[in-house]
């Protein structure tokens, strides 16, 4: 049941560099009540595309569900979920 252990996932979303797309993407985090810590928007290196990065503290199933919600959004090019660091051990450090 390791899938259900809360961990820190870094989610990187490559999306169109348009305010309406950014608005929609951030809106999904709010609307789906996603437990997010830290949110950053950077140029992606490709013209017309930005990278939205955030840290999600949730189990792997929730992280995957969040990724799927982004995946189907118009203007989103790709979604990568990194990590899965154990939050408990992180807290001990």
């Amino acid at each position: 049941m390791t899938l259900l252990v809360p961990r820190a996932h870094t989610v990187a979303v490559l999306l169109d560099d348009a305010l309406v797309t950014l608005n929609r993407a951030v809106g999904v985090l709010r609307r789906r009540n996603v437990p997010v810590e830290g949110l950053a928007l950077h140029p992606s290196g490709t013209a017309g595309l930005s990278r939205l990065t955030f840290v999600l503290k949730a189990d792997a199933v929730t992280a995957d569900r969040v990724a799927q919600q982004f995946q189907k959004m118009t203007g989103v090019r790709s979604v990568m979920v990194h990590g899965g660091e154990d939050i408990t051990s992180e807290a001990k450090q």
Partner: protein
Amino acid sequence: MAEILTGAEILCRTLVEGGVEVIFGYPGGAIMPFYHALPDHPRLRHVLVRHEQAAAHAADGYARASGRVGVCVATSGPGATNLVTGLAAAHMDSSPVVAITGQVSRAMIGRDAFQETDIIGITLPITKQNYLVQDVTELADVVRDALAVAIEGRPGPVLIDVPKDVQNQKAEWKQSQPPRIPRARARDQSPGSIDDGIRRAARLIAGADRPLLMVGHGVILAQAYAEVRALAEKTGIPVVTTLLGISAFPEGHPLHLGMPGMHGEVHVNRAIQHADVIIGIGLRFDDRVTGNTASFARQARVVHIDLDRAEIGKNVAVDVGIVGDAREITRRLLAAVEPRRCERWLEHIHGFTRPPAASPHGLSPEAILSAICEASEARCTIVSDVGQHQMWVAKLYPYRRPNTHITSGGLGAMGFAVPAAMGVHLARPDDTVWAISGDGGFQMNMAEIATMVQERLSVKMAVFNNGYLGMVRQWQQFFHGKRYSCTPIWSPDYLKLAEAYGIPGYRVTDPSELTDAVGEANAAPGPAVVEFMIEEEANVYPMIPPGGSLSEPIEAEPAPAPAAG
């Protein structure tokens, strides 16, 4: 020679090019250039509603009944915000609607101009896509894109906001030229993974003692009726249809059990709770279907087939998820399963069946619905509103033809039935269309009778009048110590209302009057209203309390509980 058109003309022309025939709308300041151009495009029939909410519901009803995109139009500000409930309903029930709104001129945007509102911002969470058109040269491709986005994949509403000066701007008309606006696409499941899912699903079906098919709206959207029926008949697996899945499988078929969930029959919910394999096709395991998910189908391995990958595992844990079109996947699953029977399991389920609940006194919902079915010789589409009557319609009406039950399931928007039925009528002019409402929901949008009269839309309106907001009253009775706070509702004299609109009106107080009144209303050439005086405190049974387990229904009036503090 290049043809120069205004934005408004381009809007009309791209709608015609996209095959749009009917538009539900209401003019206003910021959309006037569009209305100025509209008469030059007689292929676009415009239906003037009495409130923009009705335009959105009517476009939704048209879309659900026709399988094509429904279009609604409104002006900026209040016109646009009035569309919101209808767009949210279409979004929750995956209905392809395109809304076109006027916006204040570009130079005024952001200045809180008269009738300015950020409709893009307002509708972001309830649309599949929306566009603010900043340049007339983009307009044609935006409309083409919107019409495609609304209906492709999992359908949904799309909004196009067009500033007034863009509607007046001129540009060269260009024929449709792919590619459309490039768009990221959700990654589909890999073919290998789908094959694997189908093999695993077939193995689960072969090894199951108590398998169950749960069929939702996705089957209607994909028109997978024949495939689902063939799968059920080949394997003998009993079928339950969710509220929006009703009419996807013939009622009265020996394998059809009924509707699950909060107001599902006891044997249907017991079948779910005892199943060892559930094959869900095109449903999202909504909370009204599952009750408390912690106690939902705890013995079952779940196979979930859905077009939207984000639905797989969203509400309930899934053992096998298959992403794809319900028709295509069911056809392949049908080929992969071995014939089998489930007679002992069916007997087991029928052992849970309760005798039919005693009919309420006087005029019963069963008698009313059966009179409507007989009068229309089952050649009718039922559009229901939201509340007690909606559950009676879902549970009691004997649907024989696919996609003949249309209701606001996900959003549960009261006031839906009357305007949505106008759209259904235009999509299916040869069908009789009955809009069935309670006295609460009917009063929300009854102004649309004027639209029906002016536009010659033949909709038969049934009003189940119990003098209460019945479903809320039922909850107050069960869970709030019978404290009927603000649920008694007065109605006008619907016979006089009908007379005021110049249409036939009937009031039925006794079962002996049913056949004549319903028959005459059904046969009348245009719209008609029939008011049914039903028992004031009739309840919908059984009922799973909100958040409760499917295993613990309320089957009769509970002992009065102390009033909630």
